[in-house]
C-alpha cells in the first residue's frame, strides 16, 4: 500500500474528531516551527471546517467494537498503519510548506492500549528530537494505557485529549462495550493533575519542562444517545471546573455505521450542535451557569433562538439595560452583544455618554439588542415589551417573508456557525 492510500484511509478515519484548535501554546526554540498563542487556521474543507493540523490516526485497526465508530473491529473496512518515521516525516514536509500548524495524532487500538500509546509517543518523540520540530502537537491519550505512558504524552504534546464520546455511563455500556466512564475519566483526571502540578512548578522554577501547555480537551457525540442538552451542558460545565479542560467539543452524530442500537437519523443534528456550542460559549466567556440556561422543566435548547436570547426573554425583568450605567458582566448578557462589543461599550463610554446610534458603530447587532437596551434613557424596541411580542419581532427579522419557525441551513451560516465550529479558543 503506498503512502497516499494510507493517508487517505487514516485521514478518513480521523476526520470525525471535531477538535481543530492549534491555540493555547507559544512553544518556540531552536529548530523548526513554533506555536501561535491564538492558533492559525490554514484552510477550510468543503464542509467549512478549518484545517490547522495534520489530523490522522496512526492506525485504524482496533480491538474495540464501539457501535458509533467507523473503525470498529467488526466493520469490514480497509485497514492501514503509519510507522512513527512516516508520521514524523509527513508532518515535517507539510509543515515546512506551511500547510499546517502541526500534528493531531489519534489511533485505533492496535494489539493493546500500551503498545498503541508507545508507538504514538515514538512518533512524536521523533518529530521533536530528530526533526527538532517546535510546532503544535495534539495527542490523543489511549484509555487503558499504563499511567507512566500517559504521563509522557504531556511532555511531548502541546495539547492532550481523551474523548468521552458518549455523555453517560449507560450510553457507553450500550454502544461502547469495553469502555466505561471510569476508563475515560481516570486518564483525564490524571492529566489534569499533572498539568496543574507542572504549572505550579513552572511558577517557581522557570526552566522546568512545559507539560501540555495548551491543556486538555474532549469530545462528546451529539444525538447518538438520548442525553438531553441539559445533561450535556451540565457535564461540560463540570469538565471545565473540575478537570480544568480547555475545550469540550461537540460532534453531531453522523450515522457512518448501521447498527440497530443507533438511531436512524436522516441528517446530522447540526443545528442542535450549533446551539450547544453557543451555550458552551456562554459558560466560558459570558459568565453564565448551566442552570441559568436550562432547567429540569426545559432540558432542551430552543432551536429557534440562541440560548442567550432565550435566557433574556425569560428574564425580561432585568431589561432593558441602560448601557451607560450597566456593568460589563450585565452588558455581556444582552442578546446581540459579544465580548468585543461589550468591551468597546465600556471603553467608549469613558469618553462620553453613548446614544443608541453609537451602539451599531461599536459592533452591537441592534436588530437583536434593541429590545433589551436603553441609551441615555432612549429605547428603540417594541413599546410594551412582552416575551411574545419580542419573539415575534425577532422571528420577523430572521424570516422577512413571514415564515415562522422554518430554519434553513442558510440561516445557520448567517448566524455565524463558523465562529463556533472553527473557534480557536
Amino acid at each position, binding site marked *: 500500500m503506498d503512502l497516499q492510500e494510507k493517508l487517505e484511509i487514516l485521514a478518513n478515519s480521523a476526520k470525525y474528531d471535531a477538535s481543530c484548535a492549534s491555540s493555547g501554546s507559544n512553544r518556540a526554540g531552536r*529548530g*523548526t516551527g513554533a506555536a501561535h498563542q491564538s492558533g492559525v487556521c*490554514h484552510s477550510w474543507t468543503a*464542509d467549512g471546517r478549518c484545517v490547522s493540523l495534520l489530523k490522522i490516526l496512526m492506525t485504524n485497526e482496533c480491538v474495540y467494537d464501539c457501535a458509533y465508530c467507523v473503525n470498529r473491529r467488526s466493520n469490514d473496512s480497509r485497514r492501514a498503519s503509519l510507522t512513527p518515521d512516516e508520521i514524523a516525516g509527513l508532518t515535517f514536509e507539510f509543515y*515546512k*510548506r506551511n*500547510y499546517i500548524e502541526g500534528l493531531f495524532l489519534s489511533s485505533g487500538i492496535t494489539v493493546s492500549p500500551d503498545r498503541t500509546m508507545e508507538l504514538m509517543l515514538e512518533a512524536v518523540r521523533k518529530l521533536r528530537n530528530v526533526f527538532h520540530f517546535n510546532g503544535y502537537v495534539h495527542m490523543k491519550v489511549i484509555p487503558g494505557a499504563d499511567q507512566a505512558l500517559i504521563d509522557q504524552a504531556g511532555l511531548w504534546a502541546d495539547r492532550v485529549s481523551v474523548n468521552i464520546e458518549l455523555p453517560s455511563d449507560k450510553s457507553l455500556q450500550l454502544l461502547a462495550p469495553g469502555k466505561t466512564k471510569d476508563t475515560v475519566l481516570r486518564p483525564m483526571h490524571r492529566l489534569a493533575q499533572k498539568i496543574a502540578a507542572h504549572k505550579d512548578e513552572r511558577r517557581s522554577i522557570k526552566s522546568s519542562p512545559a507539560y501540555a501547555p495548551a491543556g486538555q480537551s474532549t469530545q462528546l457525540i451529539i444525538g447518538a444517545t438520548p442525553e438531553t442538552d441539559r445533561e450535556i451542558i451540565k457535564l461540560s460545565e463540570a469538565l471545565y471546573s473540575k478537570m480544568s479542560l480547555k475545550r469540550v467539543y461537540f460532534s453531531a452524530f453522523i450515522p457512518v455505521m448501521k447498527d440497530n442500537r443507533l438511531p436512524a437519523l436522516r441528517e446530522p443534528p447540526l443545528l442542535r450542535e450549533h446551539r450547544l456550542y453557543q451555550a458552551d460559549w456562554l459558560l466560558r466567556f459570558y459568565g453564565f451557569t448551566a442552570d441559568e440556561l436550562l432547567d429540569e422543566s426545559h432540558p432542551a435548547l430552543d432551536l429557534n433562538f440562541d440560548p442567550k436570547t432565550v435566557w433574556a426573554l425569560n428574564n425580561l425583568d432585568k431589561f432593558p439595560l441602560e448601557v451607560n450605567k450597566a456593568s460589563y458582566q450585565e452588558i455581556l448578557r444582552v442578546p446581540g452583544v459579544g465580548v468585543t462589543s461589550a468591551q468597546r461599550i465600556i471603553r467608549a463610554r*469613558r469618553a462620553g455618554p453613548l446614544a443608541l446610534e453609537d451602539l451599531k*458603530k461599536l459592533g452591537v447587532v441592534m436588530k437583536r439588542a434593541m429590545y433589551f437596551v436603553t441609551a441615555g434613557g432612549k429605547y428603540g424596541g417594541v413599546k410594551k415589551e412582552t416575551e411574545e411580542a419580542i419573539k415575534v419581532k425577532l422571528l420577523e427579522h430572521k424570516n422577512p417573508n413571514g415564515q415562522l419557525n422554518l430554519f434553513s441551513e442558510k440561516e445557520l451560516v448567517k448566524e455565524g456557525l*463558523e465562529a463556533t465550529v472553527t473557534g480557536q479558543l
Partner: protein
Amino acid sequence: MRTYLYAGTFESFLTALSLALERPEECAIAREGGAAAEGGLFSEFIQAGADPARAAGMRDLFERQGSAESWQHARFAFLSEAAGCEDAVLAYARLIKERGPAADDLLADDRVKKVHGLARSVGGEAHMFKGFVRFKELADKTLYARIEPDHNVLPLLTGHFRARLGSFNWIIHDARRGRAALYCGGRLIYAPITQEKALEFDGKEAAVQALWRHFFKTAAIKERTNPRLQRQNVPLKYRANLTEFE
C-alpha cells in the same frame, strides 16, 4: 487645498504627515502617481520628500501622545493601501494631538472608527496569511511562496516565518505589488522582484503536493458539505495561490 505628495514608502508618508500637521488649515496627503494626486483647479501640490527626523517625530507623536495602540493603528492603516487611508491617518493624528490617549476611546467617532477599521482589516488579513502562505520547494531547496493579498501585509508576515523557518531559505513573493521578502542565510531583505522564467521545483515537490491535496479532500465530511461556509472562510480571490485548490 494643499496636497502633500509622498513617494510610497512609509518614511515618505510620515514626512508628509508631519508637514500636513504643522498647518492649521485642512490639507491632504496623496501618493505620487495615484488617482488622488490628479490636480484640480485650486489644488497646490508639494513634494514631501523623505526626512528620517520628521518620520521619527511622527512615531513619537503616536507613541507618546496617543494610547499604547495608536502607533500600530496608524501603521496598519497605512499598510491597508485603501483609497483615502492617508487622509484618515491625518485626521486621526490631529485628533490624537487634541485629545491625547483618550482619542482611542472614541470608538463611535468616525475618524477613530475609520482608522481602527482599516487597521483591523489589515491585522485580520495578515493573520489569515499566516495560514494561507503556501511554500513550494525549489530545486535549490529554497522555499518559494506567491501571495496576492488585498493589503500590504508582507511586512507583517516575515517575523512569523522567520521564527518558524529560520533554518531554511525562503522567498515570499507579493505578486500583486511586485515585491518580495527574501530570507537567505539568516538575513532578511525586501526587494522588487519580477519572475522571468518558470520556477524549477525539487524532485519531491509534486508528490508532497499531491499528498496534501489528497488529505485535504479526504478531511471533508460529506454529510456536512457547506460550500457557502467554506467560501466565507477561504474567499475565492485567495484560492489561486493555495496548493489545495490548484
